């Protein structure tokens, strides 16, 4: 057993789990600056007392190709990002933009009234406004003094 080095307190030391732990803490350290998430589209979720807003960066996605659905407290965003048609006679120098079909499910802070979802899209930013379901709102309970 080469990898089983016993440390002073008697617990086995596994260099692989050490490495992945280090990797995780490095991600946390630099997470604010580079890639936070590799899922497309990246979303921000905002929540208020009775309404939630989800914004997503969808550059180059035709708003008509988007399909949104709400089930309970899950919003699903589906669509397709079309790639440029680059003819065989043309030379591609740099290719960083991604394309393809995507689907992303976002959990919201509460259940949503499905009929009142509003979605707008401008300049490659999707903005979905979702109203809280009446039955999920907190109910105030009066305490009766006896």
């Amino acid at each position, binding site marked *: 057993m080469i990898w089983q080095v016993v440390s002073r307190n008697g617990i086995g030391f596994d260099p692989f789990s050490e490495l992945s732990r280090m990797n995780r803490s490095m991600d946390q350290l630099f997470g*604010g*600056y*580079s*890639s*936070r*998430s*590799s*899922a*497309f*589209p*990246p*979303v*921000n*979720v*905002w*929540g*208020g*007392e009775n*309404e*939630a*807003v989800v914004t997503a*960066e*969808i*550059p*180059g*996605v*035709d*708003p008509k190709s988007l399909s949104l659905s709400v089930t309970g407290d899950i919003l699903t965003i589906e669509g397709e*990002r079309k790639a*440029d048609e*680059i*003819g065989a*006679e*043309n*030379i*591609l*120098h*740099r*290719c*960083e*933009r*991604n*394309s*393809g*079909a*995507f*689907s*992303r*499910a*976002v*959990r919201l*802070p509460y259940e949503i009234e499905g009929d009142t979802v509003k979605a707008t*899209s*401008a*300049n*490659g*930013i999707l903005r979905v406004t979702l109203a809280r379901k009446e039955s999920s709102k907190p109910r105030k309970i009066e305490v009766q003094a006896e």
Partner: protein
Amino acid sequence: MTNTNVEARKTENMRPAEETRNSPVFSPDTDIFETQDAIVVVADMPGVDDKHVDIQLENDVLTLTGRVSREAPKDMSLLYRGYSEGDYQRSFTLSEDIEREGIKARIKDGVLRITLPKARKNLPREIPVENG
């Protein structure tokens, strides 16, 4: 939480000069391809409209700048952040001579597309070879 086959990432610019606006500056993901008579630059700038984009060509350096207008929803708190908002800037050195008058740019759905026509003298020309 997600399933997807498209990857998204944003790269923050490391810039020699500091910004006066307190917001990050990202390097937009860019495709560049060359057709027979033009160079086409396609850059992702979500949140930028036609009034807030600036394209400069100085000597052979092309610089794209996009300003994002931020609108945080009122009376709401941010529960999950998957992306940060900030401006975009990126420069490219062009290796071809460009016909400056013919440069065209448009922005649609947050994607900036610039067509830079090559200078006439650089266009490929067929040279007839005489038999003699």
